C-alpha cells in the first residue's frame, strides 16, 4: 500500500529517561575535559601571540624565536637526539620482541619482567645512574673514550633506557597478531628463512613499527627529566621551556617554545592515527595463532642478545640502587641509609614522597572512575552521535600534548586572577587534574577497547528488561570490565608516581612531589640523595605492580569465578 499523497515525515525516536541522563553525564565529563585541556591550551596559544604587557602582537614572538640561533639550536638538538634514540630503541625493541614472540628462547618470563623495570622508575633515574657510571668519577668512564656523558650521549643513553618498554609493548602486540598459515604457505613454497622474514614478518608488523617509532620519537622529544640531569650544556626544547619560564620569567617565549614542542607531537599523532586507519584487519576469524618452533642457533643468539639488554637495564637501576645506599662515592663505599634522610636538605623531604603517594592514589581512584564512566557513556550511549564523537575526539587530544606544554598551559589558564577556578592553582587539586588529563587518552582507549569486547547486545537486552542504565553499569558492565579498570588504575598510579614534566610548573611549597625532589636534590649536588628518592619511587611502583599481580589474581578469582569455564 503506497501512500503517494501523504508526505511522510521522518520518525524521530523519543529519548528515554536513561538516554537523557547518560547524555547529561557525558556533557558534564566533557566539560571537565574542556576545562582541563582545551581552555588551557587556548590560553597558551594566546600567550604565545602576546607581548609582556599582554597586547596581541601576532607572530612576532615566533619570528624572534626562529631568528635567534641560540634558541633555534635547541629545536635541532631535540630532533637529532630523538631520531638517533628512536632508531636505537626500535632496533633493540624489535629484536627483543622477536625473541619473546617468535622463538623458543628460555626464561621468557624473566626477560618480560626485566623489560618492564624502566616503567617503574622516573626518567631522571637513568640520568643519575649514568653519572655514576660514566661521569667524572664514573666506573666505566673510559668506555666513552674521552667524550663527556653530559650532553647528547647521556641524553640518548638515558632516553633509550626509559623509552624501551613503551616500544617493546607495541611491537610485541604487532608481532603477536599473525596467522601461522602464512608461514606454512611460505614453507610449502620453499622460501628461505631470511626471505620469509622480509616477505612475511616485517610487512605484517609494519604498522606496529611505525606506531612505535612515532610514540618513541615523541616521548624522547618531549622529555624533561633526562636532559635536566645529564644534558649538561646541550640545550633541548624541554629544558629551554623550563629555563625561559622558571629562569627568565619570559612566559611568552616559554609559550612559543611549548608550541614548537607541541608541533612534532601533533604531527606524529596525526600520522599514527592515519596509519592506524589503514591497518586492515590482519587476522581473519579463521586465523591460526603462530607457535614458534625450536631452533637451537636462533634461540641461543636471541638468549645472548636479550641477556645483554637485560644486563644493561639491571646495571642502570642497579647503579642507582647502589648509589642510594653507599656513603660517599667514590671514596667511602660503606653501606648506609643516611641518603634516605630526605628531611635534612631543602628539596622536599619525606613530605614530598607522601605527597606523591597521595597524588597517585587520588589520580588512580578519581581518574579511573571518570575515565571509565566517560568511555562507557561514549561507547554504549544511544543516539547523540555528534556529542559522542566530539567527546571521543577531545579524549584523544591529551596524547598529543607533551607534559611540559600541559603544565605551562595550566599556569596560563589557572594562574589568571580573572579565572574563577584560580583557587586551584598551587593545590593538590591542580596536580590531580593535570595528571589525570595528561594520561587520559591511553586510559580512555583501554576502557573503550574493553567495552567494545562486550557483547553489543547487552544494552538491547537490558533495555527490553527495563534495567535502568545505572544498575546495568554497576551490576554488569563494571564486573565484566574489572580487569581493564584495574589496569587503568595501576597505569595512572605508576605514571603519577614517576611523572615530572607537567607538575614541575604546578607544584607549590605544600605540594612538592618525589620526582620534583629528585630534581631539586640533583640541582644541589646531592646526587646520592636524589638516587635514594628515585629508588623510593621505584620501590613504591614495583611494590604496587607486584601487589597488583598477586592481588588481581586473588580478587579476580573470588569475584570473577564466572570467567573460569
Amino acid at each position, binding site marked *: 500500500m*503506497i501512500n503517494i499523497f501523504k508526505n511522510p515525515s521522518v520518525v524521530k525516536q523519543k529519548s*528515554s529517561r536513561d*538516554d537523557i541522563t547518560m547524555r547529561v553525564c557525558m556533557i558534564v565529563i566533557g566539560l571537565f575535559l574542556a576545562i582541563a585541556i582545551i581552555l588551557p591550551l587556548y590560553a597558551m596559544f594566546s600567550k604565545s601571540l602576546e607581548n609582556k604587557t599582554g597586547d596581541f602582537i601576532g607572530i612576532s614572538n615566533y619570528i624572534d624565536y626562529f631568528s635567534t640561533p641560540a634558541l633555534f639550536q635547541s629545536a635541532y638538538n631535540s630532533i637529532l637526539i630523538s631520531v638517533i634514540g628512536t632508531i636505537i630503541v626500535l632496533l633493540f625493541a624489535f629484536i627483543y620482541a622477536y625473541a619473546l614472540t617468535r622463538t623458543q628462547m628460555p626464561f621468557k618470563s624473566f626477560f618480560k619482567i626485566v623489560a618492564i623495570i624502566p616503567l617503574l622508575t622516573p626518567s631522571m633515574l637513568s640520568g643519575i645512574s649514568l653519572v655514576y657510571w660514566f661521569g667524572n668519577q664514573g666506573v666505566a668512564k673510559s668506555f666513552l673514550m674521552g667524550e663527556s656523558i653530559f650532553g647528547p650521549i647521556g641524553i640518548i643513553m638515558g632516553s633509550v633506557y626509559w623509552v624501551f618498554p613503551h616500544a617493546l609493548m607495541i611491537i610485541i602486540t604487532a608481532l603477536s597478531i599473525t596467522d601461522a598459515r602464512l608461514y606454512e604457505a611460505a614453507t610449502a613454497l620453499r622460501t628461505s628463512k631470511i626471505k620469509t622474514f622480509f616477505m612475511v614478518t616485517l610487512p605484517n608488523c609494519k604498522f606496529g613499527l611505525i606506531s612505535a617509532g612515532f610514540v618513541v620519537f615523541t616521548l624522547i622529544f618531549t622529555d624533561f627529566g633526562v636532559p635536566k640531569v645529564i644534558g649538561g650544556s646541550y640545550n633541548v626544547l624541554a629544558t629551554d621551556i623550563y629555563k625561559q619560564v622558571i629562569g627568565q620569567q619570559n612566559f611568552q617565549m616559554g609559550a612559543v617554545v611549548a608550541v614548537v614542542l607541541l608541533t612534532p607531537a601533533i604531527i606524529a599523532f596525526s600520522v599514527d592515527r592515519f596509519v592506524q586507519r589503514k591497518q586492515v584487519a590482519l587476522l581473519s576469524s579463521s586465523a591460526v595463532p603462530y607457535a614458534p618452533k625450536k631452533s637451537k642457533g636462533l634461540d641461543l643468539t636471541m638468549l645472548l642478545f636479550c641477556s645483554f639488554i637485560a644486563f644493561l637495564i639491571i646495571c642502570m637501576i642497579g647503579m642507582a640502587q647502589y648509589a642510594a645506599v653507599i656513603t660517599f662515592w667514590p671514596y667511602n663505599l660503606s653501606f648506609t641509609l643516611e641518603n634516605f634522610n630526605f628531611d635534612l636538605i631543602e628539596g622536599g623531604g619525606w613530605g614530598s614522597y607522601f605527597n606523591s603517594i597521595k597524588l597517585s592514589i587520588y589520580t588512580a581512584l578519581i581518574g579511573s572512575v571518570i575515565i571509565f564512566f566517560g568511555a562507557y557513556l561514549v561507547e554504549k550511549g544511544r543516539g547523540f552521535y555528534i556529542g559522542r564523537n566530539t567527546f571521543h575526539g577531545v579524549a584523544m587530544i591529551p596524547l598529543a600534548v607533551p607534559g611540559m606544554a600541559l603544565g605551562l598551559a595550566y599556569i596560563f589558564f589557572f594562574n589568571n586572577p580573572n579565572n574563577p577556578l584560580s583557587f586551584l592553582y598551587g593545590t593538590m587539586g591542580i596536580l590531580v587534574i593535570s595528571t589525570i588529563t595528561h594520561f587520559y587518552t591511553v586510559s580512555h582507549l583501554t576502557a573503550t577497547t574493553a567495552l567494545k569486547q562486550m557483547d553489543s547486545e547487552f544494552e538491547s537486552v537490558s533495555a527490553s528488561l527495563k534495567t535502568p542504565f545505572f544498575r546495568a553499569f554497576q551490576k554488569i558492565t563494571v564486573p565484566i570490565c574489572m580487569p581493564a579498570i584495574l589496569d587503568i588504575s595501576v597505569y595512572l598510579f605508576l605514571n603519577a608516581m614517576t611523572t615530572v614534566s607537567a607538575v614541575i610548573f604546578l607544584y607549590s611549597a605544600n605540594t612538592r612531589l618525589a620526582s620534583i625532589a629528585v630534581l631539586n636534590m640533583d640541582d644541589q649536588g646531592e646526587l646520592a640523595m636524589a638516587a635514594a628518592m628515585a629508588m623510593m619511587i621505584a620501590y613504591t611502583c614495583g611494590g604496587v605492580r607486584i601487589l597488583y599481580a598477586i592481588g588481581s589474581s586473588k580478587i579476580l578469582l573470588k569475584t570473577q569465578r*564466572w570467567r573460569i569455564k
Partner: protein
Amino acid sequence: MYSANASPYLKVRNLTKKFGKFTALKDISLDITENEFVCFLGPSGCGKTTLLRAIAGLDIQTYGNIDQGGKDISSLPPSERDFGIVFQSYALFPNLTIKRNVAVGLENQGIQASKVAQRVDELLTLVDLMDQKEKYPSQLSGGQQQRVALARAMATSPGLLLLDEPLSALDAKVRSHLRHEIKELQRKFEVTTIMVTHDQEEALTMADRIVVMDNGIIEQVGTPEEIYSSPKTKFVADFVGTMNFLPAKILSNNSLQVGENILICETENLAVGSTVTMAIRPEDINARNLDNSDNNVIQIEVLHLEFLGSFCRAKLGGGDLKDITLLADFSMSITRLLGIETGSKLKVSLPPKLIRIY
C-alpha cells in the same frame, strides 16, 4: 492457537528504513495476530533483521508506523516498549548465575524477592534447567544457554517475543531438537512471537505464518503449506525448497510449449504466444504407475544420479527434452523398483496441477 480472524496484535504500516542512501526496508506493511508464531525468512541482507530491530525500537525506522496491542509505539525507545528478545549470541550476563540472569527483568519491576524466586523457579522448570540454576553461563552448553535466554526474555510475560536467528550458532542436531522446544514453549507461554531465520527448514517446521523477504520488500506472507506449494513469485518458488525453471511459451488457455513438448496445464488468462517461466518441483515429477490417464508424459534419460540418503536426485535430459534438463527426486523405493541408474531411459509425467507459471 491463534485465530486468524481476530484484530491484529501488531500492525506495521508503510515502514521504510534508510541507512544513508541505501534503503534496507521499502514500504513494509504487515499484520500479526495475537499468539501467532511468525517467521521472517529470507537470504542475508534482505532486511529481516532490520525489520525485527525496528519493531523492537533498537534501530528506529525512517518512515512508517507500528502499532502494538492498539498502542502506537512508532517513536518509543526500546525501554518503553513491551517485548522480550533473544539474540544469536544469547547475550547472557556472564557474571550472573542462571538464576540471577532470569531474575533481572522481574527485579527491575520491583517485585518482592520471594515472588521473584518463585517465578524464576517456575520458568527454569519450564525450560528444564532447575538443576543448573546456580551455574554460570560459561558452564552451560549452547543449547542450554539458549533456553536460559528464552526464560529470561519471558520472565516478565511481555506482549511480544522477538528471536533473532536464535538457532544459527548451534550445530544441526541440537538445532532440530531446539526447534521443537521453542515451539512448545511458545505454545505454553502463549506469546506472539516473531523469529528471524535464513533457514527455510526452520521456518517451515516452526511457523504459523512465514513472511518471505528479499531486498527490503515482502515477497509473500502465508502458511508454510501455502508458501511451499503455492509460491506467488519466482523468488519464493526458488528460495523455499528446490524448483525447476524452464522457459515456455503459452499455446492456449490450457497448454504451453516447453522445447518441443506440449504440456497441459492451467494457464489462466495469460496471452497466447507470450514467453513465461514454467516451474515444477523435483519431487512432483512422477515415475510411478504411469498409464494412459496420465498427462504430460515424456521420455527422458537419466544423465546423472545423486544419492542423498532417503532419496535420489536425478538430472533428466535427452529423449523428449533434448538439451533441456530437469531435476527430479525419486524416493529410494521407486529407484529400486524401476532400477533407476545413470543412463536409464524411462518415462516420467509432469502432473498439470503441480505446474506453476511465472
